[in-house]
């Protein structure tokens, strides 16, 4: 009895290990097609959209289209761009759920927020 049970458990364990591996591969293929991305424009001394809600794992790309340089700087300094001149981009991938407030360190009245929330 004990032996048989053990074999069953082992079989279950093998199955448990195999199934997620398959699922993982599938997920990877799916992610490659509709990649989780979000664009934010820096335009007219404002971040547009100012508040964005995204799923964990989303890569946000900011593009400065102003003639003035701007930065993307987290209020808690957890991420920050260099000064972005016209047409410069900055990307950051948000993995953990939470609210990420940021601003332009050159024009601090410019503020925005990324809300990271599971679907």
């Amino acid at each position, binding site marked *: 009895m004990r032996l048989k049970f053990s074999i069953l458990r082992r079989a279950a364990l093998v199955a448990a290990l195999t199934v997620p591996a398959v699922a993982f591969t599938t997920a990877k293929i799916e992610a490659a097609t509709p990649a989780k991305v979000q664009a934010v424009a820096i335009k007219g001394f404002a971040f547009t959209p100012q508040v964005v809600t995204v799923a964990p794992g989303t890569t946000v790309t900011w593009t400065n289209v*102003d003639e003035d340089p701007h930065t993307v700087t987290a209020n808690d300094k957890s991420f920050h761009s260099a000064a972005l001149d016209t047409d410069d981009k900055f990307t950051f991938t948000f993995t953990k759920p939470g609210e990420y407030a940021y601003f332009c360190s050159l024009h*601090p009245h410019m*503020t925005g927020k990324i809300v990271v929330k599971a679907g």
Partner: protein
Amino acid sequence: MGNEPMTDDLDDGMSRRRLLGRCAGWAGAGALYTMTGGVASSISLDAALAAPKRAGGARPFTFLQISDTHIGFDKAANPNARGTAIEAVEKIKALADKPDLIIHTGDITHLSTDAQFDDAAQILSGLGAPVFYVPGEHDFLDEGQGKAFLARYGKGAHGTGWYSFDHDGVHFVALNNVANLKPGGMAHLGEEQLAWLKSDLAGQASSTPIVVFGHIPLWTVYEAWGWGTDDSAQALALLRRFGSVTVLNGHIHQVIQKVEGNVSFHSARSTAYPQPAPGAAPSPGPLKVPAEQLPSMLGIRTARFVRGGEPIALIDQAFA
């Protein structure tokens, strides 16, 4: 008065000492420091400054303000900001009455690169008078957050680059309000700089004329565009006991003035490009005007200080 050439101050500390030495003669007996500003651009700067020759001892003096040269800017609002900066330097060099000193109220460069700082230094080196700098936010956007600026102009200054000096009985205070800005706020001086300002002013007689200069306005011109300084009220409280306080700034690329008691505030034109009047556009970005109109919106400023109650003229001179 000696005609010895003077190098940019703060590079070696020498010219500041020399300046102090030159200026020890007058102990500031309550000169009335009124300003007349916004003089029509049809008045030529040279004519305004074809001044009576300085009499020995009690002499009036002029100083000059140049601002927002934005060396490196090449966008539509002025594809040749380098050229207009050179034009400003040429105009200053051609003045009949040489300014004793020049203040640059920031945004020397557009993007704080070494190449832009080097180019600016080369262009401004021909001014023929000591230049006192404060940084604009465009001079503080390198990864080192001001490291490039401070390496060039920060020697002998405190903190992120504030300092003071005296000239002919006038006390000049240079402030930095573009460092360590806070989310949602405007320009910022910070506790350390305010504490320094308090001790710096403590040694001054209330009759001493004070000139304060910094990049972003020290009064709220337009909050929605960040045109003001969060903690300026604390600085102004320290300045209130003085009979005459003149606050000069750049940043907003246009002449706007305000008088509040004994304190008068004046923002200057840029030599690079104009910006819209407060609220006159959706954003404060560079203002594109027809090419033939641009020279009328760029300029420099001369301040003429006359000892003993004569009004001092602030002359804002456009390029055309």
